[in-house]
């Protein structure tokens, strides 16, 4: 039997890694559209993807319940069809982390894309390369530092996600209790020594992530 603290540590990383994989894919696509395309309602889309950054995580979590709960707009048909619900599973924790950390990736990546000299992109087009090839061979490599900074920050944010996770996945010991939730439970039950270790570990880890992201993109942070 795994030690409860190691379990929550492993679960936290599992949730953060899965969430960050999706954040990278979706974040790059959304940031690309916002940076390179003009369409109606663009600023509204930008606002929608930024909202989780400023909303209390519990409010974000509340929206996720409305959408993905067993009686939710998306959750209900899924539950009826498969008998499965994302609520109170580690997938729910990953979903909450994804939604909360996505804005960081979108903001930083969009800034990185927008700072690229437009003539470089035009040059690629006049050399006969399609938009996709240009994105893969010119835009992404040049924006690499911004992408890594966004990823590191999104990962750190996902690892530390608490409020929305609590709303969507709950705090079920041995199932959905990620590290921040465990720290909350330990502090609640007066287990200070254990909480101290986790808090120090978390602070050091987050400091390292911030330092890395800062080094990669001094301009953005």
């Amino acid at each position, binding site marked *: 039997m795994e030690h409860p603290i190691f379990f929550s540590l492993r679960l936290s990383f599992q949730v953060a890694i899965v969430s960050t994989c999706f954040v990278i894919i979706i974040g790059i696509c959304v940031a690309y559209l916002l940076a390179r395309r003009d369409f109606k309602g663009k600023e509204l889309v930008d606002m929608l993807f930024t909202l989780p950054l400023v909303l209390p995580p519990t409010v974000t979590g509340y929206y996720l319940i409305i959408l993905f709960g067993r009686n939710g707009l998306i959750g209900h048909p899924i539950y009826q069809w498969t008998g499965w619900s994302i609520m109170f599973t580690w997938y729910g924790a990953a979903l909450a982390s994804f939604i909360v950390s996505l804005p960081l990736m979108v903001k930083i990546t969009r800034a990185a894309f927008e700072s690229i*000299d437009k003539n470089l992109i035009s*040059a690629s*087009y*006049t*050399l006969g390369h399609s938009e996709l090839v240009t994105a893969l061979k010119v835009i992404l490599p040049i924006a*690499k530092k911004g992408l890594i900074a966004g990823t590191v920050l999104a990962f750190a944010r996902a690892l530390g996600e608490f409020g929305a996770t609590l709303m969507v996945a709950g705090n079920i010991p041995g199932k959905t209790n990620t590290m921040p939730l465990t720290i909350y439970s330990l502090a609640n039950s007066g287990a200070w020594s254990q909480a101290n270790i986790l808090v120090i570990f978390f602070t050091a880890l987050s400091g390292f992530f911030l330092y890395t992201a800062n080094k990669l993109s001094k301009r953005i942070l």
Partner: protein
Amino acid sequence: MGLNVQLQKKVSGFSLNVAWDMENELVVLFGHSGSGKSMTLQLIAGLADPDEGRICFGDKVLFDRALGINLPPQKRSVGYVFQDRVLFPHMTVWENIGYGLKKCPKAEKQDRIRQMIRLLYLEGLENKHPGQISGGEKQRVTLARALIGRPEVLLLDEPFSALDNPLRIEMRELLRDVQRQFNVPIILVSHDMLEAYSIGDKIVLYSQGKIAGTGTPQEVFSSPLSSEIDLYLSLNFPLLISRH
């Protein structure tokens, strides 16, 4: 094969309305900054769309508003050299040049890159990044990259404006060589009179989005085609008054 250009475009307070054509020669679009020269290049390359007009290269129609034809830049076979020596910063000189060549067997690609490196005197710089080479070298790499795909027309937007004088003269000669070797029509945008005079087979004089005159450099600068051109040149380039 000639290029025929008829363009109309309005953008915030500026209106471009020009029509001219060229054969296999070196045409200089000459005029002040903001007279619509660079915009013309962008419209020819397909980087922006004209409101009205037609661009065709021999039988190949690149753009025709009336027929609803508008080829994307990728399909126009146009070599474009930008004003500020735009090279891909993450690629070496070799990779930058190679990027101009699509769908080409590896051996042939290497041969052609090597050939361009030799023609534009870039030996020894193959593995350097753009940040490690001089302004003149960068411009030669840009030329190599634009030419390696054998475009049907080469567009240059004030390519030598950031270079110092001796280098400029060298680059002009190089451009002449390039034209001879590749047998490609060249359109060069410039506001440098000496450059226009010394390099152009033909000058298209731009003034506030319109054409003030066309002709050989001698025709335009030495014996004005009309009093309008004369007035324009005297007003804008007072040094020319001495020719009277």
